[in-house]
């Protein structure tokens, strides 16, 4: 390999040019991306109306900052590339976490596995004014139907759950003023869906 590079007989300037080529590509890509993400004309007009348009000095400062950043990328592009890969992975992980389903139920609150008919048997509502439909889970019957429709995989299990009042729930550890109970769609011990029959 060393002999191969020697046989090319390139000057140090040529080597430097070769080295900076990927850096140049990255710098151009970054600047184009940054240009595309600049505030819209509408936003610029709003800022102008508020008397906060970019001054000549700020423009000059921006040119200086972009020049320094461009030189850094041009020469230190391997470091920039590593940083970019790490940052992309971190962003992807953040997005996965953000898009994760937010259920109140957690595996520790599951009580027992049961069949839909077992769940329905104790779900009828006592309403002396007879304003509640005489169907399982009363007004929540339609939601129950939708919940069951989503349990198509043969590995799906129906579990009842109960969360005591003082326990934090969900992704953000929300507090509740009362107990929460309902049914969960479980697969391999993992919560994939929930139907809450009582809560605040």
């Amino acid at each position, binding site marked *: 390999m060393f002999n191969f590079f020697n046989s090319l007989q390139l000057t140090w300037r040529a080597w430097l040019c070769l080295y900076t080529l990927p850096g140049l590509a990255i710098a151009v890509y970054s600047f184009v991306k940054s240009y595309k993400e600049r505030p819209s004309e509408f936003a610029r007009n709003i800022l102008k109306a508020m008397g906060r348009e970019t001054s000549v000095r700020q423009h000059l400062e921006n040119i200086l900052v972009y020049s320094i950043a461009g030189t850094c990328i041009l020469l230190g592009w391997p470091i920039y590339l590593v940083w970019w890969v790490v940052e992309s992975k971190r962003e992807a992980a953040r997005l996965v976490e953000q898009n994760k389903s937010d259920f109140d139920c957690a595996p520790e609150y599951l009580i027992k596995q049961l069949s839909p008919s077992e769940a329905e048997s104790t779900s009828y509502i006592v309403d002396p004014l007879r304003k*509640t439909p005489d169907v399982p889970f009363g*007004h929540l019957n339609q939601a129950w139907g939708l919940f069951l429709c989503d349990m198509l995989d043969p590995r799906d299990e129906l579990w009842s759950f109960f969360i005591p009042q003082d326990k934090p729930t969900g992704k953000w550890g929300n507090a509740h003023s*009362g107990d929460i109970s309902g049914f969960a769609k479980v697969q391999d011990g993992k919560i994939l869906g929930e139907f*809450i029959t*009582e809560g605040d």
Partner: protein
Amino acid sequence: MTAQVAERLIYGDKEIPLFTNPLSLYLKQTGISFESPHTANWRGYVGTWEIIESDGVGRLYLVKLLAHKTYEEIIGLSDVFPSLDKVFAHWFTGELRCPQGAQLEYIHMGYASTYEYDLLMNFKQGVLVEKHARHNTMPDREVDPANIPPFLRKQSV
């Protein structure tokens, strides 16, 4: 977040503000959502509730609803619950909070303002279990200088 418009509770012969949204669980379960007409009503509706006694047991009913289907179009209770004039909130287990008396502190967020006292009612599956009042005092917002980080303290010249 702006302070939010309260739900209403018919209590005795009065209609009092209610700082709890008992309908939210029902809407979440059924996938119904409304349009917010302004920043003081992010949920897009205002419900009026009543505790109706039957056989010595108080139950929570939704008796009126004004909900924004769109910004302009307002729908009522019978649009969401066809052919019903009252809806038993059997899904509600938790505490209803009704602020009473003078406002001690205004907080520009949700239902976070403090009033002289709160009427608190606990429900289990829509059935009133117990109620009590809580007297509130003016929240202490005094800042202890010792707790201020050094970089935020005024530097002596």
